[in-house]
């Protein structure tokens, strides 16, 4: 004991880190992606791979350019790329995921100050922008399913009120047109619940979102619309994986709950009136991201033992 080490307390920290949380997220997304590949073919793998690799490279390049510290093992940009890839349909041109990653990583993350400082969920915001640039993403380009035909997105039927055009069974098992990762409801649900039970993502926000989504949809379109709406249009994917993103959601428990509730309301309104097609859930997400700092302010905790207004 020649030299004692001194450090300030606490001398232990929990055995988890940002990268580990992100890695767990990736693991949870893998089954969803695999299901997507099975349903849509190998091209799905190409789209996801392109968006993951380009997201990672953009992150590294941007940090080099800005003279920020480069984290070589950076799982968070991988997650962003992964999620972005999963929200794209399989038959997009190959440059779409690359442009998407650029928008997500450089514009919506890097320019806001890097990890933890972004106002919008990078993947969600990038997907929304892509949806506006390539208008086909919203509706007609969702083709090519396991059925092998050109099928329009279920949303097109639902907009006309034809809820029985697509069976709930095929919605649940992903036998519909849609984005790579968002059609397999079963994988999303399982992965989401596993993540929540290991406390990797928050459970308050998804619960709140689902509650109000069901309530508003019921009120506006009747009970028959609930399940088709819930299982289509990326709603569950966004609610499980993108809404509880730590950076862009509020910090306090009540803030989170309200965040979830309002997200459910906004998303169902957009969906019921079919304003933006497949983009509507992402629009709702971006809208909520703007509200998050406000909710943080409203639900800011008050320290105990300190006089109010002092």
């Amino acid at each position: 004991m020649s030299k004692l080490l001194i450090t300030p307390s606490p001398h232990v920290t929990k055995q988890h880190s940002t990268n580990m949380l992100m890695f767990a997220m990736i693991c949870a997304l893998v089954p969803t992606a695999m299901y997507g590949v099975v349903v849509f073919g190998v091209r799905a793998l190409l789209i996801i791979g392109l968006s993951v690799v380009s997201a990672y490279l953009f992150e590294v390049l941007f940090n080099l350019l800005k003279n920020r510290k480069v984290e070589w093992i950076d799982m968070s940009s991988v997650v962003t790329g992964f999620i972005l890839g999963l929200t794209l349909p399989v038959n997009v041109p190959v440059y779409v995921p690359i442009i998407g990653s650029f928008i997500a990583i450089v514009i919506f993350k890097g320019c806001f100050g890097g990890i933890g400082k972004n106002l919008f969920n990078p993947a969600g915001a990038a997907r929304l922008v892509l949806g506006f640039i390539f208008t086909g993403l919203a509706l007609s380009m969702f083709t090519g399913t396991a059925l092998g035909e050109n099928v329009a997105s279920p949303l097109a039927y639902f907009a006309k009120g034809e809820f029985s055009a697509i069976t709930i069974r095929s919605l649940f098992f992903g036998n519909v047109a849609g984005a790579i990762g968002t059609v397999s409801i079963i994988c999303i649900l399982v992965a989401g619940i596993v993540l929540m039970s290991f406390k990797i993502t928050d459970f308050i926000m998804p619960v709140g979102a689902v509650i109000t989504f069901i309530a508003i949809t019921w009120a506006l379109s009747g009970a028959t619309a609930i399940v088709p709406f819930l299982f289509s249009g990326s709603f569950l994917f966004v609610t499980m994986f993108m809404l509880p993103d730590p950076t862009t959601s509020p910090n306090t428990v009540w803030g989170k709950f309200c965040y979830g509730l309002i997200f459910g309301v906004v998303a169902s309104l957009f969906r019921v009136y079919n304003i933006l097609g497949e983009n509507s859930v992402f629009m709702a997400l971006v809208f909520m991201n703007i509200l998050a700092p406000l909710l943080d302010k409203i639900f800011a905790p008050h320290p105990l033992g300190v006089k109010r207004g002092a």
Partner: protein
Amino acid sequence: MEIRGVKLKKQVRYSKGNGFFVLREPDYFSVPLLADDGEKPQRVVNVGDMVKEGTPIAKPVGRYGSFVYSPTSGKVIGVVTKLNASGNECEHVVISRDLENAKDYLPAMAEEDMNHEPLLRRLYQSGMVDNFAPYDPAYKKYLLRCQIKSLVINCTEDDPYKSSDSALIETYMSEVVEGAKLLKIVARAEKLTFIFTSKQKKLAGVLKKYIKQLNEQKRIRVKIYPNVYPLHDSRLMAYYETGKMVPEGSRTAPTSAIIESPSNCYDFYNAVKKNLPCIQKAVTVSGKNCLRKANYFIKNGTSIEHILSIVGTKEEYEENMLIYGGIMSGIAQETLDISATLTASCILFVNRDEYSRDNETACINCGKCVECCPVRIHVKNLDDAIVNREFSKAKKLGVEACIGCGACSYICPAKRYLAQRISFAKDIVQGNFGKSANSSEFAQIEQNVASNDEDEIKVEKKENFVSPQAGAEGSKPAVDEMIEQIKEDREKEKSKDTKFKIIDATGGGKNE
């Protein structure tokens, strides 16, 4: 009342359930005359005086001082000024032990004296200190004239390594309960509440049974709290019990609850029934570098070096740590030349695998720190304010409410140095920067990290910063010299009188 905090994994496999060991007494004690930051008592012995076990060596000054008693019988061989375990400079009385074992305890108390006034006086005389922050003399919180509903005995051991309170209750249950009842008379409280965590359910059951035997279920209650960290803070405990929070640095009496520790109950029982002044403390000695992990009764003024020589280290390499106090809120010491005092709860000899040193990464805004803060500080915003050196904003965000528990740093996935930075900012806001050990240590780290903004704080840092090393090293030769002296004296004594056998027994301490 919502109890917030973090869940920690208990590390008491070895130290638990073995009762208590008595540490072999060292050849010399160096008793600090200041346990923590408090009012300095006045020394009443001089170099050369003979003292007995229990002779007062310092008396209180001012209204809130406290007595300090000699832990052994022997001769005062010196008075040195060095740092105590909390990084405060104070006088240490060095006493060399002789083999006479002469005792000089408090006067006996009569049966009819078992009411408020005489017991409060005995509490004052006993020299007990509070085991929960702030480390006042124990009697201080009983002086406030408030209606006390319940005296709360906080048996929760929230620190992962601590098991001394459980062991004390297990081994000396009747004494602890009796002492608690005596303290209840001092507090004039209506009820007595023992609080355990869900990890201690078995012990709580045994205690419940014992209380049933005494037929006092109505007046003594046993409560189980969830197993979270922190529960050790008395203000927080009073808040959980009564729903009222007192401001930082105040006593909890206005909330109608007084918080006491089981070890103080035991000490008070000894002070009243056995007339023993408070000279020892039940301490958990543990850590991977400690061979004999156990609970010990350690006398006030025993040097850590001596404890280490008995419990032994496994390995000797750099980057070991000595932590005085629990692993979550204890103070890492720079030298082994530190005395254990009555405020110790744990002494940990920690090696490289046990503590975590991670580099800070960027905050991902997850809000985990906000959720776990027991006093509901918006830790993330506060941290941002401190990083930007906005101390007035930090004050507004309640930096002074922080109890320094470290739960936020523990939980943060980005490994931010939250609690460290907050305690540093708290000291700056309250104007006592450099006085508490934790903030000084953090200042050292800050200096190494070298932030690129120059401002007045840095200047202040240089001026007020007390390096623990300077004081400790400056005083070390004095002690060393004296020890040499003692050894020489001993040798002479030995050769003079062979009737005495110096019992340098087992080295392990005996089981009680």
